[in-house]
């Protein structure tokens, strides 16, 4: 069980205890908030995207990681040209989603047995994906997944399979950890090209790098030192990290699966999977688990205090009643009533202020993104188009542009995620509805709850490049999206709701990259022209529409979504305010009642209150302990901090 598992379990049980207390106090609003927050933590996914070229041992790795021999078919022909996600479910349920050529916005969901999976996901079972499978979703009652781990197996990538690569690429910005699978063969150029991009997408997080490289099939070598050194050197060159900071975990899936079958500890040791799990969980902890726990603890603390407030008020009033302290009682009642009317009236200014702040954040993010796109364009003009080799190699040129763009947009996404979370906390604080537990400020700001409606950037007027949201035929629920390109044909699909506030931006990135692939044909034609100047002009001409389109896309995204962000934040603050009001009203009511009861009744009530508040006090103690534990658990790793720490050490 990972440390996250334990912390999460404790938080979940606290939600249960507090909900029971809320039930007893008839605190309906608090109970609902607790239920919502509990569900958010319980349903939260830690998304691990697994990518790698064909035949590097991805399927075996996933089987070994899940300890499910034979879940992913290992076939000589196996080619994952689909995204497959695996997550927890109370019982095994494999859903294959098939596109319907007649109704492009809908998908058919078919539940299949594990043994039949190969018929859909292997090249021999489903040649050229004739069955039109778009996505496979697997739910398993596997304890390894119980805490929300979601593994996403992505299509392989390779030289000319631009569509596959694009599908993988589009979900990278949303990943909490990226597992990049290589094997005992030296990494080749297409792998390295993709890795550079993945590293840009993965390295943009506040809490350090999310990229984990796994070198599989070490059982085929007697000595892995040479290939590890070779791969490590390439990883260092491609990620810009020093060699000793590169995360590279050599594993043997065969040994792990043998351990699963036979229980031989030596197999487990030789598999090195314990190290892989350690690295994976510490990455997830840094990248996402702390964020989720921070949100849960904030909610727990707010709710516990909301439950305690009426009890404490009542206790205080009863004490005044028993000491016949009439002025004390009166002022207590007045105080509680003031609090109620204060919350009822509220500060009318904050909402407008919030909208303004979100708008200015969105504007800033837009500027960052546009500035980034312009910088990429400038680099093209000043650097790439001056490079004779690149003029002859448009594929590499596009690759470079794409790497640059991913880096720039990831920066913007990070600014948005963190800015939105910061605003939410700030406005909660302005309204005095934020947790003030010691230590909670050191945790990451809880994220903005997911924006309910996904915006659709420019679907109507750009049929050649569309982002489409899919609905389930049966339930009508949004189950994913596809990004189509190349003249109305859906070339690849990504069927994952990209989590977090920056989802639209993630889609923007996907769309932009699709556009780049689309124009590659013109680029090749451009590179065939004769003179250097012609080449430069033709390439510039071929890329210009992409540049313009990308800029418009970003503007559209911001225009169509900033208000939804503001609404989401406001809704969260409102909900906390409603909870506070509920609690204040209850407190006022109880103070009023306490003043009017008999001494005997007061004494009985006092004894009852001691019992009533016991679970809440206990919960508050546990929450404080959890905050501390989460603070100590996988502290953030920041490259710049590490470096400055090193500089400090070097000082005499």
């Amino acid at each position, binding site marked *: 069980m990972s440390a996250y598992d334990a912390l999460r379990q404790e938080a979940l049980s606290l939600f249960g205890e507090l909900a029971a207390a809320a039930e007893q106090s008839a605190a309906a609003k608090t109970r609902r908030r607790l239920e919502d927050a509990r569900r958010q933590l319980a349903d939260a996914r830690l998304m691990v995207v697994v990518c790698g*070229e*064909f*035949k590097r041992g991805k399927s075996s790795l996933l089987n070994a990681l899940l300890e499910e021999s034979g879940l992913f078919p290992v076939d*000589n*022909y*196996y*080619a994952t*040209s689909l995204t497959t996600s695996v997550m927890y479910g109370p019982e095994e349920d494999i859903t294959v989603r098939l596109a319907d050529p007649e109704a492009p916005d809908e998908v058919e969901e078919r539940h299949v047995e594990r043994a039949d999976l190969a018929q859909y996901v292997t*090249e021999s079972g489903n*040649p050229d994906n004739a069955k039109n499978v778009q996505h496979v979703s697997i739910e398993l009652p596997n304890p390894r997944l119980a805490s929300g781990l979601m593994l996403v197996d992505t299509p*392989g990538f*390779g*030289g*000319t*399979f631009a569509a596959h690569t694009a599908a993988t690429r589009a979900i990278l910005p949303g990943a909490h950890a990226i597992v990049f699978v290589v094997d*005992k*063969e*030296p990494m*080749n*150029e*297409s792998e*390295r090209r993709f890795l550079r991009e993945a590293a840009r997408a993965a390295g943009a997080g506040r809490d350090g790098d999310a990229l984990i490289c796994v070198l599989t*099939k*070490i*059982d*085929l*070598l*007697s*000595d*892995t030192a*040479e*290939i590890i050194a*070779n791969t490590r*050197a*390439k990883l260092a*060159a491609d990620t810009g990290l020093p060699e000793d900071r590169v995360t590279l975990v050599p594993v*043997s899936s*065969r*040994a792990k699966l*043998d351990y699963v079958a036979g229980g031989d500890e*030596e197999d487990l040791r*030789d598999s090195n999977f314990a190290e892989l799990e350690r690295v994976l969980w510490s990455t997830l902890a840094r990248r996402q688990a702390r964020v989720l726990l921070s949100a849960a603890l904030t909610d727990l603390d707010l709710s516990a205090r909301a439950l305690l407030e009426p009890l404490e008020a009542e206790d205080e009033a009863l004490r005044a009643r028993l000491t016949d302290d009439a002025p004390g009682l009166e002022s207590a009642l007045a105080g509680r009533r003031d609090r109620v009317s204060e919350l009822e009236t509220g500060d009318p200014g904050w909402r407008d202020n919030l909208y303004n702040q979100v708008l200015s954040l969105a504007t800033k993010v837009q500027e960052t993104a546009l500035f980034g796109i312009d910088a990429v364009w400038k680099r093209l003009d000043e650097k790439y188009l001056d490079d004779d*080799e690149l003029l002859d190699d448009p594929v*590499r040129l596009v690759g470079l542009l794409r790497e640059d763009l991913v880096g720039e947009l990831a920066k913007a996404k990070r600014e948005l995620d963190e800015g939105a979370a910061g605003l939410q906390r700030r406005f909660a604080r302005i309204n005095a509805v934020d947790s003030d537990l010691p230590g909670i400020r050191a945790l990451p700001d809880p994220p903005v709850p997911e924006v309910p409606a996904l915006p659709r950037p420019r679907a109507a007027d750009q049929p050649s490049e569309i982002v489409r949201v899919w609905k389930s035929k049966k339930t009508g629920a949004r189950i994913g999206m596809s990004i189509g390109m190349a003249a109305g044909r859906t070339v690849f699909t990504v069927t994952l709701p990209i989590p977090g506030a920056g989802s639209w931006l993630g889609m923007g990135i996907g769309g932009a990259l699709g556009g780049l692939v689309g124009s590659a044909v013109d680029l090749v034609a451009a590179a065939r022209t004769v003179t250097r100047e012609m080449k430069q002009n033709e390439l510039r001409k071929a890329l210009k529409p992409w540049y313009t389109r990308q800029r418009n896309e970003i503007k559209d995204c911001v225009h169509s979504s900033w208000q939804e962000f503001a609404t989401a934040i406001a809704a969260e603050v409102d909900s906390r305010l409603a909870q506070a009001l509920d609690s204040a009203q209850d407190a006022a009511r109880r103070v009023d009642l306490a003043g009017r009861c008999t001494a005997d009744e007061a004494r009985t009530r006092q004894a009852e209150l001691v019992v009533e508040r016991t679970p809440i006090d206990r919960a508050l103690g546990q929450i404080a302990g959890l905050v501390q534990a989460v603070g100590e658990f996988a502290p953030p790793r920041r490259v710049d901090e590490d470096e400055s720490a090193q500089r400090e050490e070097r000082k005499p």
Partner: protein
Amino acid sequence: MTDGPGTLRDRVDAALGQAIAYLPRDKTVADLRHLLEDHRRRFPAPMRVALVGRVSAGKSTLANALLGGRFAATGRTELTYNVNWFRNAATAELTIHYKAGGAERVAQPTVEALIARTARGRDGDPRFLATIDYLEFAHPNARLKAFDLIDTPGLESVYVADSANALRFLGLDEEGVRVTNAQHTERANAVVHVLPKPSSAREYALLGDFLSAAPGKTTPVKAVGALTKIEDEWSPDQCDVMAAGRVLAKRLMDGGMNRKLYDLRPVAGLVGQAAATLTTEEFDDLCALALRADPATLVRQVKYGNRFGRADSRELPVPPQRRGSLFDRLGAFGITLSCDLIRGGVADRDTLCGELFERSGLAAFHRLLVDHFGARADLIKLQDVIADVEAQAEKSVAALRGPAGARTRIAVERARAEMIQMAYRERGLDELDVVHKYYAGELSFSETDAQEALRIVGEHGTSPRQRLGLPPIASTAELIASAHRARRHWAMLIDSPDGRGGATGGACRVVQRSLDALIEELSPSVSR
């Protein structure tokens, strides 16, 4: 309808001589003249077969296995940098051709001297390696009688990005390599595609792109595939990796690879290489493992290479370090196979090596190269000659536009005509063309007819019995009767609606002519 007197080689020599004679000793046609002379001089030389494939596909390992010794450096990471041309000669000689021009000869070279100039050594100087155009290693080698072998660092199109990057990683120049590789593809008459066991059906589509991007050079007739790294698939549950490899190769061929490759064969390159280079000490170690270790323990330990060479596996007789190096040299498949053979009675190193050569698929692969490329070598080369001459003549004619060049232009046309006549005269070329068209999917015969056509045009051997698909005991009378039957069948086909036009109709006529020639050959009294 006759090929003319003498052997094909004599006829090509005569035609090229005649073509050269037509040309004036004129600077304007020097290129063409040079080309013709070059081809005439080179024609009797063996066919040149290049090993191509992605970085670390196992080309050098396969080269060693085919050459029967350790000539190319092999390892776990990118190694081969320079193009390496191996050919048979009476005495050993290494010639280093430099990019800047000029060559250096090393008499009685050691293999180390060759490897130092081919591979990135631990202390090798990449700048020096980059100055080399290619290396030519001549040495007495019976395996090279039928063809020369060219080991490359990776070729063209889908492959070039990888190898170029590998070289960039090694600190070497990218553009230079591309040019060198292109020249060597030109220089090779045929290629062996070295494919490290299949990645996906789609990856093979890439191979198709690669092949069709290099017209004229990589038709199926000139390309065979080696499915390498088969030994990686070994596990205690799947010991017979060669059988699994054959199944896979067949599936790939049936799945469309037969349009790209003449044949695709699984080879355990590592084991094949070991068969050529096994030391006495290694043999002794294998014997110790085979005879003194419990077979089940051995299988359990050898399953994990990372464990096999480790000191704490005390149940095995050979010291850990030597076990590790055995694993590197033979892999789990090679070790278990050798031990099985030794337990089965193989008692000396040479017998074991012979068995390993057979069971690694290398013997069959070498035979395929000898039979296929050896038997067709001259026809394949002739095709290249005709294509080259036509292309160059085209250029020369274009350069000689206008009245001033009229006389020379006529000379060029006559030279070209000489070669084109060759193309019409040589029945073998037409037959080869039928084979091409079949593999290219241009023929609309039924599969039965297609197979018969291939057989008749000599795809499976050029003796009358092989062409007619009859057993060796068949009498001449039976052969003649069979040929006549076939003749009638093909005459009927040519009259059928879909037999008439296009490539299929042409193929019908070629088959008919082949049968005519066959009947003529079998019954000389009838025709003369």
